[in-house]
């Protein structure tokens, strides 16, 4: 066995042990069921009697990590049963990200998120700054382009479209393959895409059955809606930025309207509001993460979470900075920096926390369908 094979084998062993131990806990949960009012995980659990790897991957990705079931658990540590669902499902989620990654070997990047994103970012920033300096010509990067500022005077539109099209296209392919693999692991059962979208849009499963989600220890502090609210800021901020980009593309190709767009245009407004919401959401989520009861988290995923939040925050911040500086001599540098962040973000997407949304949506789509079907284990009460 080569050293690499040995590592892969060890990782597989770890995943098997993780699945075995989480399956053991789920067996205890399924005999207890006191948490069934909290979320989809326990409602889906009650439709099963065996918890193999695919079932656990499904349940783990249904979990929105609100923490309610840990504090409510009569079998949580120090009980000898050691039932520890939020953290165990978090670990299983990481294993699913790795297992369903495409290419498979890139799954290892999830655990090296800081290094991976750092290198991508350094390369992208260096490339864009050097390209900008070169494209700016003999006058230098800091000369304002008279009479009107223009992104495309620095980076020709065709070049930008080609570069980002390629990066985003790669990310899209990688994410799609992963999604298809995960979908297959969910089994033959049909999906309910629309109810799942509604559930995801509301983060219905982050409500802990209506009482909220735990940041600090639930033994001393009540649940709050803060994580859910700040995730909404982040998600909808991202959605607005995405809408801004789609609209800009449409205006460019279909209407022939070229950037830059006026400050009062829909493109700029959507991007600005979205970027601001992203900054509010991600910065609060970073703070809430630090306040969070360590009992709930998997330490191995700390950088996976924080890297994603920081990247979203910095993509937005550099985007807003670019808008502020676009009439100044700093335009070229600001543009290069923003594009560097966006490029690194795109390339990191299939191997970072972004994927949680895709897997969770698919798990929800199965759950929403499943709960409309009769329970194969609806125990009679006799």
């Amino acid at each position: 066995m080569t050293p690499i094979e040995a590592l892969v084998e060890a990782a597989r062993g770890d995943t098997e042990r993780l699945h075995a131990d989480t399956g053991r806990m789920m067996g205890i949960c399924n005999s207890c069921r006191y948490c069934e009012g909290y979320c989809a995980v326990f409602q889906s659990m009650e439709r099963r009697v065996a918890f193999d790897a695919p079932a656990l991957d499904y349940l783990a990705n249904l979990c929105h990590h609100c923490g309610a079931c840990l504090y409510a658990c009569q079998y949580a540590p120090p009980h000898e049963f050691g039932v520890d669902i939020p953290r165990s499902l978090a670990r299983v989620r990481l294993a699913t990200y790795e297992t369903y990654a495409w290419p498979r070997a890139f799954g290892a990047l999830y655990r090296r998120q800081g290094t991976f994103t750092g290198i991508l970012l350094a390369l992208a920033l260096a490339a864009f700054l050097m390209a900008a300096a070169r494209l700016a010509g003999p006058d230098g990067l800091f000369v304002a382009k008279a009479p009107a500022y223009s992104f495309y005077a620095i980076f020709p539109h065709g070049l930008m479209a080609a570069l980002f099209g390629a990066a985003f296209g790669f990310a899209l392919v990688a994410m799609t393959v992963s999604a298809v693999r995960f979908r297959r692991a969910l089994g033959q059962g049909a999906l309910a895409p629309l109810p799942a979208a509604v559930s995801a849009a509301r983060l219905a499963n982050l409500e802990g059955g209506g009482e909220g989600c735990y940041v600090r220890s639930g033994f001393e502090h009540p649940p709050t809606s803060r994580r859910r609210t700040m995730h909404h800021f982040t998600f909808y901020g991202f959605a607005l930025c995405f809408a801004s980009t789609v609209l800009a593309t449409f205006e460019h190709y279909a209407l022939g309207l070229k950037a830059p767009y006026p400050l009062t245009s829909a493109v700029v407004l959507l991007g600005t509001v979205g970027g601001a919401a992203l900054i509010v959401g991600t910065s609060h989520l970073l703070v809430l993460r630090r306040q969070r009861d360590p009992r709930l988290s998997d330490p191995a995923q700390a950088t996976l979470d924080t890297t994603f939040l920081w990247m979203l925050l910095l993509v937005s911040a550099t985007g807003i900075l670019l808008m502020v500086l676009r009439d100044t001599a700093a335009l070229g540098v600001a543009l290069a920096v923003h594009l560097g962040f966006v490029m690194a973000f795109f390339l990191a997407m299939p191997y970072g926390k972004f994927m949680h949304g895709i897997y969770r949506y698919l798990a929800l789509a199965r759950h929403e369908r499943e709960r409309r079907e009769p329970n194969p284990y609806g125990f009679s009460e006799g």
Partner: protein
Amino acid sequence: MRSTAASGATSIDATLNLEALEHDVVVAGGGNAALVAALTAREEGASVLLLEGSPMAWRGGNSQHTRNMRCMHEAPQGVLTGAYPEREYWEDLARVTGGDTDEHLARMAIRGSSSVRDWMMRYGIRFQHALGGTLHLSRTNAFFLGGGKALVNAYYRAAAHAGVRIAYESQVEDLEMEGGRVRALVVRHGGALKRVRARAFVAAAGGFESNREWLREAWGEVADNFVVRGTRFNQGEVLRALLAKGAQPVADPKQGHMVAVDARSPAYDGGIVTRVDCVSLGIVVNREGERFYDEGEDFWPKRYAIWGRLVASQPGQVAYSIIDSKALGRFMPPVFPGEAADSIAALAGKLGLDAPGLERTVARFNAATRPGRFDHAVLDDCRTEGLEPVKSHWARPLDTPPYYGFALCPGVTFTYLGVKVDERARVLAAGGGAFANLWAAGEIMAGNILGRGYLAGIGMTIGTVFGRIAGMHAAQGARAAA
């Protein structure tokens, strides 16, 4: 065991000097009734100290293992469906206790249950509808979202927020009396005995079910084979101290709630999951391989609470539930997998039973089953004929391997021996009259209402309603004494 080690020294507040403090009300106990009494006394303006015997990680007594509360209601109310009027509630209680109840106190608990949920919700308790496996209770019982430990957490958070002082690892060991008054509690805290003063005291420290010696006193040697389903901290010290100081006892020490649980259960805190729900789907034999009771007498939820005593009366306090593959998927998944084998003889070997004996019992049972239409959701017509004891329903031959077996032992949930109280929850003295500044709530006085038998969720009803009553009167008593 790692559990006790992991939770030991962390929850004692080093800044707390119990002897220097004097509160209006001191509550001995840390479960539902104690918390409700403490919060109510606080509402009345009293300063309150709550003494929980366990470390923080194990707080809440048996309340942490509960799930619901039986509530009277005249019409659909919140999560409760239909109506459960006072008359029906009382008749249910009178039936299960065989009249071993104080009707006046019982009706107070019943009436109180109709309005107390709003009060609970103000302190963060949330309710949910009954779901799968408990649908038969959706009319009568309101379920706590997340179960009893979530309820206990909410009350502790609310108590801290309201200014109730909470001391963990504070086991009340004795009462210092003067005339008919309690002057102080003797409390073991941080390895030393402390004298804790107050104007009024509420005893809400549970029964004695975790005390192995006391169980042995009540039951004899057979008690050594019981497991305790709940907390290890209900050692009965407060109850014993009250009785020693002349409180009037109520209910028989042998009465309590006992179910048949998996014999592999932990000695304490196994809670809900250790129950074995396949009894009505197969047969149950004792150590000699003989059946001893009608497994299909009635629906399992109505019968599961008698099987603890049935198993306790068998040799070695052990029994074996045996099913075949037809039963799989028809009962709540067990927490420990059963022994499995392809023949009855092989299963007997795995369970440590005499193989020919068990084969004989199964053969006789199979031969006595009469064809019928099996339906586990109704009292069906699958019964045995010419067999003693009969199996009245769901009797199908054990003929489809693999066969499964679960060893069962008695699991004590709680004991009913307590102190007699009046309608203000004051503790009554054996010699007549009441203690001047001593009230009781919860399991320590539940025997007034539940002298025998059981109704699902009534323990939490008694604890909540009498916790409110005791807390209010204790606060008023403290004010009058000040």
